[in-house]
């Protein structure tokens, strides 16, 4: 270790430390400190008032619980929707077909989330495509409003998370040697048992990574609840937005933000613990 290499280390370390300190660590510490103050209090004394208000006001904590539960459901649905597709791409499709299908999964997600959500608005609204199809096929008597309800929100949430579930699962399944599945079959294993004992355990790092990212994206989603769920969709990010932008009560908004971050981190941590993964081993691949 000469002087030169220590200089090199410093040069490489400085941008990373600056980035993480100034844009990640300090902002979150500051947000926590702000959440412990009350708006308009010149003494700037620390207090838990903002958190007390959260628990005292049913609208706030119910929206929080609702957001958490719906996010878990959306994550589970995303896994259910994506797993068979990921399996197909990784294990059934071959050669160019495999590459093409994988690419087709990526393309929609290069487009803005706003455009994708807008597409669902056009599909689901009363004058929309699905409503027309239902009338045309005789399944409905008149135009049906499919937008502005919880199911529409769920569709948007699952859609947004799909890619982040498919890609990591395809990646891990690609590393599963087919001969292991064949050996299990030759030894008398049936499909459900092979899935349970070989495929799913092997895919666990990918499943964990997909679920963590899907949950985080769902919890923090603003567009799908707002545009597909309408005014009364009660998503917690809307409460955060409301406090920051509409009411200009940053102290309360910071408390909400911190609660959302705590929930998100707790679920991520729990997900990693339950599946025996680390952040670097799952998301960082």
């Amino acid at each position: 270790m000469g002087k030169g290499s220590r200089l090199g280390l410093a040069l490489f370390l400085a941008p990373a430390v600056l980035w993480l300190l100034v844009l990640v660590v300090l902002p979150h510490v500051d947000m926590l400190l702000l959440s412990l103050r009350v708006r308009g209090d010149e003494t700037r004394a620390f207090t838990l008032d903002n958190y007390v208000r959260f628990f005292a006001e049913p609208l706030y904590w119910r929206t929080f619980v609702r957001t958490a539960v719906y996010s878990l459901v959306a994550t589970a649905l995303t896994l259910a929707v994506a797993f068979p597709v990921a399996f197909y791409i990784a294990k059934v499709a071959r050669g160019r077909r495999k590459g093409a299908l994988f690419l087709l999964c990526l393309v929609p997600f290069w487009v803005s989330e706003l455009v994708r959500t807008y597409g669902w608005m056009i599909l689901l609204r009363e004058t929309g495509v699905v409503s027309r199809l239902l009338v045309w096929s005789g399944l409905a008597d008149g135009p049906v409003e499919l937008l502005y309800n919880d199911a529409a929100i769920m569709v948007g949430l699952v859609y947004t998370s799909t890619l982040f579930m498919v890609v990591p699962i395809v990646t891990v399944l690609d590393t599963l040697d087919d001969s292991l599945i064949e050996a299990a079959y030759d030894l008398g294993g049936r499909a459900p048992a092979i899935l349970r004992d070989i495929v799913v355990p092997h895919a666990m790092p990918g499943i964990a990574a997909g679920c963590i990212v899907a949950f985080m994206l769902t919890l923090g989603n603003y567009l799908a609840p707002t545009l597909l769920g309408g005014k009364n969709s009660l998503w917690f990010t809307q409460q955060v937005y409301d406090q920051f932008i509409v009411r200009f009560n940053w102290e309360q908004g910071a408390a909400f933000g911190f609660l959302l971050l705590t929930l998100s981190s707790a679920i991520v941590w729990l997900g990693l613990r339950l599946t025996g993964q680390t952040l670097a081993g799952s998301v960082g691949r």
Partner: protein
Amino acid sequence: MIPGIPTPRAVRVLHGAYVAVFFVYLFAPLAVVAVLAFNDSLFPALPWQGFTLDWFLAPGPRRVGLLHDRELLRGMATSVQVAFWVTLASVAVGTTNAFLFEQETFPFKGALYTLALTPLVIPGVILGISILVFSSTVANAVEAATGIEVESLRPSLVLVVLGQFSFITTLTTLVLTARLRKFDRSLEEAARTLGATRPAAIVTVTLRFLRPAAVAAGALAFLMSFENFNTTLFLVGSDATLPITMFVSLRDGSTPVINAVSLVLMVASATIGLAGLAAGSRRR
């Protein structure tokens, strides 16, 4: 299940059909947006009224096409500007991070690496508000101490760039670190044996090796920045980026000009994405 073992025909057909339905679901929202950009109607909805290019070309006043829609064009220019700086900064820091995590050893390296990944699991909304809060704390402190009002620390494009940079850098770091891991360090050592200094060896040998990954990371950064909504929402000042402009007009009821701009976005992002993939998968 897999082609190597016999599977009942029904299972195979069902699995294939499910995958087909999945891709219909994946592309249906994009397809309707694209098709209705050409519908000769004032509303982005069925029925089909005939083909028109009005939503791209019409000068107004009844119909304002994309080429004459000042707000959307300005939003697009703003987004390109923001994405340019985010791409430049996040690829630069992603590259130094790759060297840091692949070639250097120092105490708490594992902890720092984990910290570098955390922006991926922090909801974008939270990143947005935390940076908003911190930057105004700093701006207030500067103002109290010197009396100077730092405009760029209030909601502005500078904050938007910083906010997007904060998590996009994690992505570029992952892409570039993965590439550097495949680098054979004996090549760099050979250059040094032949008399190159370490900086010279890095520039002439290692950075050349990283270039395809840098292009791929840059394409990814550009796309992620251009499409970002959640973080940007809280940091944007008077100059709105395109997704914010589109969000406002969607909320207030829109014309198919939104479809037109969406179609342009789809074509552009597919092109950038494919170019990035092609660059990233090149051997050298």
